[in-house]
């Protein structure tokens, strides 16, 4: 550690407990950081593309996750290194913003770092590299817009959307029935989409999973599924034209918030209290009945007596329904959440065409379907699958597909996949590089090389000769001036991605390039790492 000494040879203490901290500076710091970033990217590299492999992750508690989703892998990996954490953040922000392409963004950042390392060795200042990358990323994003195509679709023509979702799903374990899944995702998104405002509220789509059955049994329910059953075993299991009272108050005697005591000191008081209590229960049930409710959904529990009264008055009820589900039910059925019995009115009731209970398998598993709701703007994707891991992975895949469909509705520009967009950008950036005087030129070329690494990884994962394939596709793009040539991962026989129907969203791709560049710039700018030494 570099230290300054005064004239008596005593060191100046600058940092608190300086001797206990490790510190790397200058080029060493940058190289260490780059190495860490690359290590993370290397882990994800093999997951890229339709032939990408999965990772098995064992959590601190011993649970096993098998996944192909970049964001999930990094999140579960529990990394320690600070730079690695930055990469995890990177993947997460892509997940939040776009929902798909979480693996690609990390791989791109990794290869940008790799190129930066080479440039650093040549003695180029990191800031100049960062600036060069910035310029290059701008060129690439513009070029993407240039090659992007508009995509026409409507509620009646969902085929383009389905195709795009299928591209996303083809890299996941569900690709056995990607067509069905893609259709489910697109229909779900269209059901809740606000086409005029071009916005989709994904909160309205609930993804629910239950172990058992097979993947093909996955279905889209236009309504809500609640993992609950009727509070009394003898209540009817099927209600048509239900009028639903959605309550957030328990069927129990009142519990004032302020501390209080009811003192009983005479027999009369005891008796009146008793009668009041009974009347109270009676009133509650009667109020629900009076407004015409045929189903009560309650966030809290019921007392046994209330339960029986409900049963007795032929008023089916569901108890202990979670807050989020309650909100969804309220949205779907057009009802209002009622916090007090006094406020129940007929117009606050939700309406649903059919409420039914369905049981699964040999165990006592029942779920409640609420269908044909008044406001069909809430849907549930109900996933079945062979085991828990499969379901979790399918949930993630469906989430990705939903996000892609949403992005398309927001912005219907697409670029072609299979690495074709990256190759096209790489060519454009390479061509632009020569126009820049100064050191940045090298950085811009480095950026172009880094873009090549994505199709390269795709080819590698698909078992093709990476360099050969890439150069062939690249020359084809330049020769035919056709930016739609990509890597033929599935061995279809053509490199033209238009014919293979491999699409990705424009904003997804742009976001990938921007985010990766930003993180790399940030990493490059660090020249001093001070960390507390280990004991």
């Amino acid at each position, binding site marked *: 550690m570099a230290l300054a000494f005064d004239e008596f040879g005593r060191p100046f203490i600058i940092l608190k407990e300086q001797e206990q901290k490790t510190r790397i500076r200058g080029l060493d710091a940058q*190289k*260490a950081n780059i*190495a860490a970033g690359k*290590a993370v990217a290397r*882990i994800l590299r093999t997951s890229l593309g339709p*032939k990408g*492999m999965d*990772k*098995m*992750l*064992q959590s*601190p*508690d*011993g649970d096993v996750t*098998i996944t192909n989703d970049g964001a999930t892998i990094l999140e*579960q*990996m*529990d990394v*320690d*290194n600070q*730079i*690695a954490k930055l990469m995890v953040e990177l993947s997460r922000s892509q997940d939040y913003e776009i929902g798909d392409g979480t693996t690609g963004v990390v791989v791109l950042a990794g290869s940008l770092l790799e190129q930066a390392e080479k440039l650093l060795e040549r003695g180029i200042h990191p800031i100049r590299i960062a600036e060069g990358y910035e310029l290059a990323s701008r060129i690439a994003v513009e070029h993407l817009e240039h090659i992007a195509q508009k995509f026409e679709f409507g509620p009646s023509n969902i085929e383009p959307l389905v195709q795009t979702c299928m591209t996303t799903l083809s890299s996941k*374990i569900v690709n056995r029935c990607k067509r069905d899944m893609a259709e489910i995702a697109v229909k779900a998104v269209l059901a809740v989409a606000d086409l005029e405002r071009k916005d989709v509220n994904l909160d309205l789509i609930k993804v629910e999973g239950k*172990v*058992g059955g*097979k993947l093909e049994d996955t279905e889209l329910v236009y309504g809500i599924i609640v993992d609950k059953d009727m509070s009394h075993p*003898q209540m009817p299991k099927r209600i048509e034209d239900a009028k639903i009272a959605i309550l957030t108050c328990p069927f129990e*005697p*009142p519990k*004032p918030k302020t501390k*209080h*005591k009811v*003192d*009983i*000191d*005479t*027999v009369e008081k*005891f008796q009146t*209290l*008793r009668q*009041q*209590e009974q009347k109270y*229960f009676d009133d509650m049930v009667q109020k629900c009945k009076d407004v015409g409710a045929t189903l009560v959904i309650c966030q809290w529990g019921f*007392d*046994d*007596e209330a*339960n*029986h009264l409900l*049963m*007795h008055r032929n008023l089916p009820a569901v108890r202990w329904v979670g807050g989020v589900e309650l909100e969804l039910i309220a949205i779907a059925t057009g009802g209002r959440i009622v916090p007090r019995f006094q406020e129940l009115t007929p117009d606050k009731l939700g309406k649903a065409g059919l409420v039914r209970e369905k*049981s699964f*398998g*040999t165990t006592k*598993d029942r779920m409640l379907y609420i269908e044909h709701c008044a406001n069909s703007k809430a849907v549930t994707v109900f996933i079945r699958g*062979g*085991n*828990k*891991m*499969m379901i979790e992975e399918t949930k993630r895949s469906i989430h990705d597909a939903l996000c892609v469909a949403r992005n398309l509705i927001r912005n219907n520009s697409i670029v072609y996949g299979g690495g074709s967009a990256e190759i096209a950008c790489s060519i454009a950036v390479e061509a632009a590089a020569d126009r820049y005087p100064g050191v940045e030129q090298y950085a811009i070329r480095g950026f172009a090389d880094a873009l090549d690494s994505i199709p390269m990884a795709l080819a590698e994962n698909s*078992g093709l000769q990476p360099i050969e394939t890439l150069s062939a596709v690249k020359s084809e793009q330049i020769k035919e001036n056709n930016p739609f040539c990509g890597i033929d991962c599935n061995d279809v026989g053509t490199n033209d991605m238009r014919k293979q129907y491999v699409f990705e969203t424009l904003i997804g791709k742009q976001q990938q390039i921007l985010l990766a560049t930003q993180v790399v710039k940030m990493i490059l700018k660090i020249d001093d790492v001070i960390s507390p030494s280990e004991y």
Partner: protein
Amino acid sequence: MAVEKILKDDASEEKGERARMASFIGAMAIADLVKTTLGPKGMDKILQSTGRGQLVTVTNDGATILKSLHIDNPAAKVLVDISKVQDDEVGDGTTSVVVLAGELLREAEKLVNSKIHPMTIISGYRMAADAARNALLQKVVDNKEDAEKFRSDLMKIAMTTLSSKILSQDKEHFAQLAVDAVMRLKGSTNLEAIQIIKKPGGSLKDSFLDEGFILDKKIGIGQPKRIENAKILVANTAMDTDKVKIYGARVRVDSMSKVAEIEAAEKQKMREKVQKIIGHGINCFINRQLIYNFPEELFADAGILAIEHADFDGIERLALVTGGEIASTFDNPESVKLGHCKLIEEIMIGEDKLIHFSGCEMGQACTIVLRGASQHVLDEADRSLHDALCVLSQTVNDSRVLLGGGWPEMIMAKEVDELARKTPGKKSLAIEAFSKSLLAIPTIIADNAGLDSAELVAQLRAEHHREGCNAGIDVITGSVGDMAALGISESFKVKQAVLLSATEAAEMILRVDEIITCAPRRREDRM
């Protein structure tokens, strides 16, 4: 420069070949572990729990064995998981699914070693699984229309399932029991309605199905031991001191006499409640909660049989059997539906007194009383019977039936082999491997029975070359036999679930090329 460490201290990371090796070996070890329990001559395992008392379980049930293992290998956990799901979903075939997945991985390992990409193997396996399923679909028999035949199908399935279990000696007896019980359910899969009571003593043969319902409770003292034409009120209500439920209520008095008054009022309240209950015109009262001495005495005075603390399942079943309604308030007797049964009496099984309800209105629920030499035998019998009941109840819903004894595997293998010959490219190798894995199941069944498996399976293959052949392994005589004639059947649903889950699990494990194990969570030091 050394590679930066990015994971936490105790975490480990295995890549590529090593990762694949680790998961293959883990999965195969699990498959080999349960392999010997497969088939009618499969052996049992003793499991000793690590908990206090070191309870011993003797079992043949794959899911039970795997559930009790503590496994660290993540791939092995996947297999344990599919076995569990199989148990929940169809109830039987828990061993087969693990063995098949293990065999698929064993074959896959060979292919990977000969430089075939896992993704190619996966797509081959998928095609093969589809072909196999179609082959089964073509051969299924559906006898739903013909009640007589359907029943005999059910009998056959039950016997086949039971033949690999401890009950195999009395399989006919138990198959009869299981079929009777399931037929009473009339298509519902709610096995809760079938109650299994285990009482040590006697022999397995003494087990019986009771048409009525048996409740493992005693009749209160001084109450009638036998009631004919019982009117039953099933209730869930507090019969101790009926608390005031209004929050924060408490008794505060200033003199002893007041206490006595309130106590009297309380008693009065209880007395009124009991009066109301009696007012329903019943002669039997069953409560989920405790009945204290005082109300019990009142009931005894009124000549009413009061049974306390029947647990929740018991109450639900009783309500099912007697057709009554579970009541919690008693103000309007005219609208409460009462349960009815012909006779309630106390019976003795072994040394224990039980309450027996017979001649019930609705015959959905029933009770199977298992007798046996020891608790272990009973537990295993319970598990076996549960398997049989699960399979039967699923078959009632999906009545497609296949033959057993390795017949479906042979059919599938034949179809898959044909597909392999038609498919161009490397995939065909994977498809061929799939058919080999299917053949492993009859091989293991034969091996476990101590037969010459190579010879038998080869014979079977030859037999199956003819169309419409019913040949399978007859473990009893140790030769190839006609499964239709021997009456060995299996449910299509079980076979399909085995096939699909095993393929899915194998696919999942094959796709993995890296295992990252996080640092185990440190336990807090509890001093």
